[in-house]
């Protein structure tokens, strides 16, 4: 049995992290590390699952069979992402049922972006392009996260995300090069989603008190503001290519920084949405709750079927 005291264990733990040795489920880890990861991974899982709703809204109304098949495949992938992540969180001792109940009671958080409505077909394009695009920016560094199961889940997720972004960008560019009305629809969608997409990277670094510890533990590999800047820098060119205008009059190339300067984010709006007062928070949580309640009979039936199959096997 190990007789090391907590300081020794913590020192050894940090030494492993510093040497880029991954932490695996049964390894000793500080309680703070476990809690931070459980919160982050479960919030991430909830975001994948709630994220199915705004797009699920358009599956029956996709403009062609091809678009419908693509959207269906994308939404199914998001369900898969949620499952990889719940499993990763379970390796830390997360109680999955309880965590889902916390989502349904409003105690657990998920990405603020999914509390905005999807009003037109163009939103399916913009979500893939910007929302999945921002998610990729966030998730690529997480593939190198110090916690093995989370990093491995992220590798799978990132492989699948690139199709999400491309199919979205394809929708946007077709609309942007279509009729005047179609182009207007794409522009309107970009106008509505641009700022919420920037908020996906979280508060400014000065207002992100736990970031330093997460970076020290290599749970996070880049800061919120670094990732946001990176996202803006690549996306502006893409918008220009398809002839759409980023809705920010302060957006300007800064030669000295080699990056775009951009306007101020409405953090008051961000905080309101996080606190549950976004346009669709209630609708999203209601939909999740209904899905769980209305699906109870399916879970029971599966249990009953498993029982029956087991009995049959025993009598053979």
């Amino acid at each position, binding site marked *: 049995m190990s007789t090391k005291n907590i300081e020794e264990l913590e020192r050894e733990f940090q030494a492993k992290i510093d040497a880029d040795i991954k932490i695996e489920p049964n*390894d*000793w880890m500080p309680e703070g590390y476990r809690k931070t990861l459980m919160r982050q991974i479960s919030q991430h899982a909830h975001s994948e699952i709630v994220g199915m709703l705004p797009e699920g809204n358009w599956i029956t109304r996709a403009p062609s069979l091809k678009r419908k098949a693509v959207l269906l*495949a994308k939404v*199914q992938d998001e369900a*898969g992402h949620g499952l990889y992540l719940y*499993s990763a969180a379970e390796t830390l001792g997360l109680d999955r049922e309880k965590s889902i109940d916390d989502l349904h009671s409003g105690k657990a958080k998920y990405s603020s972006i999914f509390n905005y409505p999807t009003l037109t077909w163009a939103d399916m394009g913009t979500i893939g392009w910007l929302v999945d695009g921002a998610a990729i920016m966030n998730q690529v560094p997480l593939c190198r996260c110090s916690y093995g199961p989370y990093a491995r*889940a992220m590798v799978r997720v990132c492989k699948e995300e690139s199709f999400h972004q491309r199919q979205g960008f394809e929708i946007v560019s077709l609309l942007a090069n279509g009729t005047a009305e179609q182009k207007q629809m794409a522009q309107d969608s970009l106008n509505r989603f641009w700022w919420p997409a920037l908020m996906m990277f979280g508060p400014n670094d000065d207002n992100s008190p736990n970031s330093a510890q997460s970076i020290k533990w290599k749970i996070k590999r880049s800061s919120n503001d670094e990732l946001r800047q990176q996202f803006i820098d690549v996306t502006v060119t893409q918008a220009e290519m398809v002839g759409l205008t980023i809705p920010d009059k302060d957006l300007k190339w800064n030669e000295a920084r080699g990056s775009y300067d951009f306007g101020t984010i409405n953090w008051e709006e961000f905080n309101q949405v996080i606190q549950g007062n976004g346009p669709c928070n209630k609708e999203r949580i209601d939909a999740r709750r209904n899905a769980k309640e209305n699906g109870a009979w399916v879970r029971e039936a*599966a249990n009953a079927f498993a029982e029956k199959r*087991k009995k049959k096997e025993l009598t053979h």
Partner: protein
Amino acid sequence: MSSKEWPLWEIFIRSKQGLSHKHVGSLRAADAQMAIDNARDVYTRRSEGISIWVIESKLVTASDPDESAEFFEPSESKIYRHPTFYNVPDGISHM
């Protein structure tokens, strides 16, 4: 209403003939057959597999990471088990 939670299963996938099954993650399902069906949807949506094994997570016995230094020491100290331990004189080939 029954609130019996489905057990957790570890999922192993053979990606192609000639390779061994490899652990890819876990999922919950009511029984082994349903775990296989779910694993197909969760882990092989892009032809990642041609064969799936599932095993209930609670049946896995693992070595203790806290003892791994002592436990794996016998192989650490036997460097003569590796071909690089031996000198092969210049001019000798096919060895």
